[in-house]
């Protein structure tokens, strides 16, 4: 007998994305809700009737009842899927938390709240041992009770928990320690974990699924769920990583000395085509370029911005050269004199003044280039 389920976590419904302007926050919030539909689709494709969500369902324990109703309705709409939810450090199940509203929303039978550490048989021969969090942090391992909780002989025991597995550097934002050897000590076939937003294999029976919809420019691999198949209590689980992300958050670091150095980035965005509108990109540009090249890079980045859903270009470490050839752009008259003075000030020890002078020089070049008959 085998049992296939979907392992997911860290939906963080209701994340506000206040750092974005315009309607982008709403779009990104909506995408997190719609990820549920994608997860349901993956479950159907994989023949999984159960989805195990390992905590941080909500971004905050004070999520609104409207948000709760939106979630419950969306989960309920997938009647063929049973959703098993536990609380995480973002949404601990304590009194009068968001979970009260979830209970108050009278979720249908296919939405199962596991807000107490109590073993439940979710399918024949499959026992779920949930470890919901009731506080934002705890000093003891919430999965420890699994060691002493028996289940019928021959059943497959699945642990579902939210926290940080010590010893592998997966420290998420939860101050909750979880022993990665729990499958061995508690006889678990699989321990499904949440908190780490990237997909991460801790051991053959211990996995972080990561968030199904990315929410930051990460260094890990978000945007997936895991399709897990258990072929028996002791069989090694078969785990498949399935991408679910609607929006792709990417980081790029470029060392630029000439406008040509941005070519790869431009090509990458160009190659995305319309899909670029579902990409968020953080570009950190470093290096030094001639004045004209610096202006050209600025123009390229400006041109690139509307192609993407969001472009965050960090050019604070991208400097302009002020060599004689650069200043020659200003001719020999008054502008040249001014440019030379600004260039001199840009070498000032005062970091702030130096930065302002460098920017003033760039501004001079930019305005002069836009002025008829300008030097640049």
């Amino acid at each position, binding site marked *: 007998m085998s049992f296939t389920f979907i392992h997911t976590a860290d939906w963080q419904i209701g994340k506000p*994305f206040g750092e974005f302007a315009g309607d982008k926050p709403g779009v990104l919030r909506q995408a997190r809700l719609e990820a549920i539909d994608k997860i349901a689709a993956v479950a159907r494709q994989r023949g999984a009737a159960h989805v195990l969500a390992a905590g941080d369902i909500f971004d905050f324990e*004070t999520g609104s009842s409207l948000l709760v109703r939106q979630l419950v309705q969306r989960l309920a709409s997938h009647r063929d899927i049973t959703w098993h939810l536990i609380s995480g450090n973002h949404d601990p199940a304590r009194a009068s938390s968001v979970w009260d509203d979830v209970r108050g929303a009278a979720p249908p039978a296919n939405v199962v709240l596991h807000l107490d550490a109590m073993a439940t048989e979710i399918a024949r021969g499959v026992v779920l041992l949930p470890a919901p969090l009731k506080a934002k942090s705890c000093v003891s391992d919430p999965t420890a009770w699994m060691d002493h909780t028996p289940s019928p002989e021959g059943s497959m025991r699945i642990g579902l928990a939210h926290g940080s597995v010590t010893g592998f550097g997966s420290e998420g934002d939860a101050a909750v320690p979880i022993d990665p050897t729990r499958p061995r000590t508690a006889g678990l076939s699989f321990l499904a974990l949440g908190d780490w937003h990237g997909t991460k294999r801790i051991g053959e029976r211990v996995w972080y699924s990561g968030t199904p919809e990315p929410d930051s420019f990460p260094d890990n691999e978000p945007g997936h769920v895991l399709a897990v198949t258990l072929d028996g209590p002791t069989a090694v689980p078969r785990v498949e990583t399935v991408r679910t992300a609607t929006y792709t958050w990417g980081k790029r670091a470029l060392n630029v000395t000439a406008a040509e150095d941005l070519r790869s980035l431009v090509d990458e965005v160009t190659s995305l085509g319309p899909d670029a509108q579902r990409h968020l990109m953080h570009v950190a540009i470093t290096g030094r370029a001639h004045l004209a090249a610096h202006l050209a890079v600025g123009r390229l980045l400006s041109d690139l911005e509307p192609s993407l859903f969001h472009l965050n270009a960090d050019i604070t470490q991208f400097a302009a050269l002020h060599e004689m050839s650069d200043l020659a752009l200003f001719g020999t008259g008054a502008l040249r004199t001014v440019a030379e003075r600004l260039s001199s000030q840009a070498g000032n020890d005062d970091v702030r003044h130096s930065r302002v002078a460098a920017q003033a020089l760039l501004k001079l070049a930019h305005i002069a280039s836009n*002025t008829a008959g300008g030097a640049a």
Partner: protein
Amino acid sequence: MKILAVRLAEVGCFSRAVAVEGLGDGLNVLAGENEAGKSTIFAALRMAFEQSHKTAHRDVEAMRPYSGGAPLVEVDFVVGGETWRLRKQYLTGRMAELRNLTTGQVSRGTDAEENLTALLTQKGGRPALSLLWASQKGALTPLPPSEDAAIGLKRVISAEIAATAGGSEARHVRVAVRAELDAYLTGHKPPRPRGDYDIAIKAKLRLESDLALAVARRDAALVRLDRLSELKTQETELCDPGRIAARADASAKAATAAATARDALQKQRAAADAVSGAESRLALARSKREIFEADLKRLAALTAEAILDQDLSRDLATSLADVEARVTEARDARNIARNALVQADCELKAAREAERKQEAQQRLSGLNQTLAAADEAIRAGLELKSKLDVLRVTPDLLRTIRTEDDAVRRLEDRLAAAAPRLTIAYAPGAEGRITQNGTSLAGGAHLVDRTLVLEIAGVGTIEIAPGVSDDATTAQDTLARHRAALARLFADAGVASLADAERQLTHRQQLEQEIAEARARLGALLPAGGLAKLKTDIDALAATASGNGDDAIRSRADIERDIDAIRQDLIKAEAADEAAQRKLAVEREASVRHAATSADRAKRLDELEDKLPAPAARPALALELQDATNVCERALHAAVREHTAWREQAPDPDQLQALETSAQRAAEAVTAENRQREELRRSVASLEGELRADRNDEVEARVAELQGALEAATQRLDRMEDDVAALQLLDSELRAEEMRSQDQYLRPISERLAPYVDLVFPGADITVAENFAPASLRRANDRETIAALSEGTQEQLAVMVRLAFGRLMADTGSAVPVILDDALVYSDDERILRMFMAFITAARHHQLIVLTCRSRTFSGLDGHRLKIAPWQSDAQSSDRHLLSASA
């Protein structure tokens, strides 16, 4: 360029054609009254050079005369060494003709206009014409940058300096920078944010404020969540049914124990009260019986006392009568003694009066003797005084006499020493033969102090006279005065010589001594009050000594002894009387007391008889009282037994208090827990309500959203601030560069202006703004803006700037005339004279045409004197004149 002549017809105020001919190099002056048409002539000149003949510009229209017509202007001028005549007519008769009088070449209409423009532009004439035209008060108006004249001047300056290359680009860049800065900042000082920058600042502040509120709200919500968890835990504990039942059972048991104890104690207290009542009743019964028995005893005793009392009353009456008799005797003896004493006292008084009279007589005798001695002393003193009064020599008078006497003697000695001394020595036998005034002179020496006539019998006479000298004469006069004074003193003293005076003074002093001694004796005799007091005392004593009074029969000592004896008797009599009185009082008091006691006893006997029943009923009453006492004793025994029994069961007060406290605490604990549960439920409900509101407002999400927004707003504002700082720095640098360029740019003007300024304002310097207007004047280290100067100074500076322009044009080969049309309106005479020097200097370099209405003032200004004259239409003569002028 140089103007030679101007001619007008049908222009402005002129009803006839007029001309100003004969303008020459250097200084030209046209002086005339107001409204003479000076300004009109040169306005027409300007119109000819600047306005196309086809124009209907309002300035041209304004030149049309009131009577109508088409303004005609003809100007002869020299440019580039050639003489030209420009003739233009406007409005209805419009035409233009430019004739080269040197070559005879003529162009008309549009060609004439184009050729004129080319001619003036190439040579720099036309653009500068209006620039160098300073009309009335117009010199104060700066040149608009777009004016052709200003542009032309700039072109000239640019041609002269090369360093301004790039300046225009810098200005364009600065305009763009200012435009960008203007989008960020207002023009206030200091500038204020505006536009997107202002919005970004306010947005950040608003977000910070909102975030602070949101954080507070979120923190409060989280605190509420924590609190709710605590309350829930407490609620679980408090609402445990087992706990509630146990608490209620404990309370009920404690209440029962307390009630039982309280009942036992109440019964014990009731028993104690019963014992106390029985004891009271027994005491009452016993008391009644004891009183009855006591009354019977007292009745018997009083009856016995009444019998004895009758004998005692008789004895008391007898004793009282004896005592009263003794009292009468004692009082008689006392009275006798008192009378005897009074008689003895009278006798003693008489004896004392006799003694005092005798003593007064003795004392009176002594005083009379003293009075006689005093009278004798007084009499002796008066005698001495009368002797003394006769003596007139006093010590002072004697000293004066001595002085005068001494002076007489010394003068006499002096005169004697100076007088001749005659010594007669008789021969034996011749004694006595020398006589003086018939008196023989004895032998020996004689002083001759006056003329001495000696007769010698038989011989004749010898006259001897002392020598005469002033000193001797003076001494003799002085001696005579002193002798006279001495004689007066002797007369006053009543003496004949100094020796008499000495003796008289000695006598006087003896008398004074004796008088003093007599006074001393008298003082010793008299009392303090003197003689009068002595006499008063004598009179008083005489009265006393002569007073009435019988002589005493017995001596005072005898009498006093009798008195002592009588007093002893009196004391004894009084003591006996007092003793008898006391005894009488005692007896009387005893009698009264006895009577009172008897009465009281009788009263008490009556009362007892009244109180007690009849003697026959008294034994029955005694038995009744004994029975009642026995009943009470039995009741008391029963009550004591009951009380003893309850005392063993009842708790002591501390125990009861402990039980009561325990029961109360148990009940309170139940109540408190009930109340606590209610409060908990209310608190939980309240917190849940607040948390529902918190959740509906997504307080945590709101904080995260605001944090993100604030971070983005901060980044955006930081970028803007950097941008603003960069623009400000750039603007500052461009401005600094512009100032440097401007200094360089305006230097050609400044250099040419300096000589004129030095002529009018020695030691001063002037700065010129970019629009060529005077900007400031520095005199004596004080720099003033032009606006702060007087109007006279302002117009002088403006005229000098025009002269500098003219000089610059001339120096660059583009000389044009400078025309000053009553440009010095506000200047005083002294300053005008200085301006004349500037005019003369300027006229060495270019043509200068000065129009003025101040003929007298300007009469001292050298130069060609111009006048407005009718236009001579003789073209030939005019041409000849022009040709000669251009040559």
